[in-house]
C-alpha cells in the first residue's frame, strides 16, 4: 500500500469527522472502536464516476434502495470503517471498507424529478457497493 494512499485516507477520516460522518457524533456512544490498519485498498478518488451495484441481498444493507443501479460522482473519501453489514451480525467487519460520499443528480435518481437541474443528493456508500464507470 503506497504511503500516499494511507495519508489520503487519514485526511479523509478527519474530514468525515468534521462533517458528522460515521466517526462523528455517535461513535463513542455506540462503542465503535478503531480498526487499525486492516482496511481494503482505496479504489476511487474524488471526481471518479461510479455506478452503485444493482443488488438486493436480504439483510442489513446501508446502501439505500433508491440509488442502486444509479451512477454518480465520488465527492470525497470519508475514511475506512468496519463493514456494518458484518457488524450487524456481531462479526468484526474487517478489513475495513473505504466509505465515500457520492453525489447523484436528483434527475438521475428520479426521472420525474421536477426541481432544478443542478439539484443533487449526496449519499455515503461503502466501496464494495461501487463499480467504476467510464466518463461519457
Amino acid at each position: 500500500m503506497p504511503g500516499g494512499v494511507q495519508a489520503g485516507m487519514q485526511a479523509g477520516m478527519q474530514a468525515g469527522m468534521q462533517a458528522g460522518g460515521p466517526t462523528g457524533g455517535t461513535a463513542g456512544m455506540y462503542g465503535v472502536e478503531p480498526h487499525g490498519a486492516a482496511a481494503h485498498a482505496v479504489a476511487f478518488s474524488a471526481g471518479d464516476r461510479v455506478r452503485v451495484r444493482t443488488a438486493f441481498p436480504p439483510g442489513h444493507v446501508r446502501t439505500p434502495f433508491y440509488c442502486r443501479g444509479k451512477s454518480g460522482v465520488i465527492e470525497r473519501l470519508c475514511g475506512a470503517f468496519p463493514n456494518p453489514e458484518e457488524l450487524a451480525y456481531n462479526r468484526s467487519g474487517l478489513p475495513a471498507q473505504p466509505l465515500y460520499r457520492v453525489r447523484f443528480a436528483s434527475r438521475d435518481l428520479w426521472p420525474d424529478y421536477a426541481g432544478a437541474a443542478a439539484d443533487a443528493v449526496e449519499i455515503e456508500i461503502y466501496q464494495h457497493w461501487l463499480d467504476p464507470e467510464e466518463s461519457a
Partner: protein
Amino acid sequence: MTLRANHDMGGLAAGKIVPREHTYEPWEKRVDALMMLLSHKDRQLLRVDELRRNIETLGPDAYERMSYYERWMHAISQTLIQRGTITLDELGRKMEAVKARGALPGEESC
C-alpha cells in the same frame, strides 16, 4: 414481489409532515439508557448495527404499529438473546415478574 425492504423508504412520498412537541415516558428514557449502557465501549454487548438489523427485520405491520422506543426495546431484547447474553426463558419470566409487581412510584402504568 418488491425488492425494496420495508424500512428502506427513502425517496418515497411521505405526505405532509406535522411537527409536534412531546415528552418522553419514563420507560422510554430507560430503554434509551439501556441502549447506552449495553453499547458502551467498556461492555460492547450490543452494536447499533445489530439494533438496526433487528428493527429492519420486523414485519411491515409491526414496523408501522410500534413506536420508536418499542422498536428499540424489541431490537435490544433480540440482540441479547441472539448473543446468548440472556435467554428467552429469562426474558419471559422477568416480564411476568414485572407485570405482577406493578408500576413503581413515579411510573405510569402502561
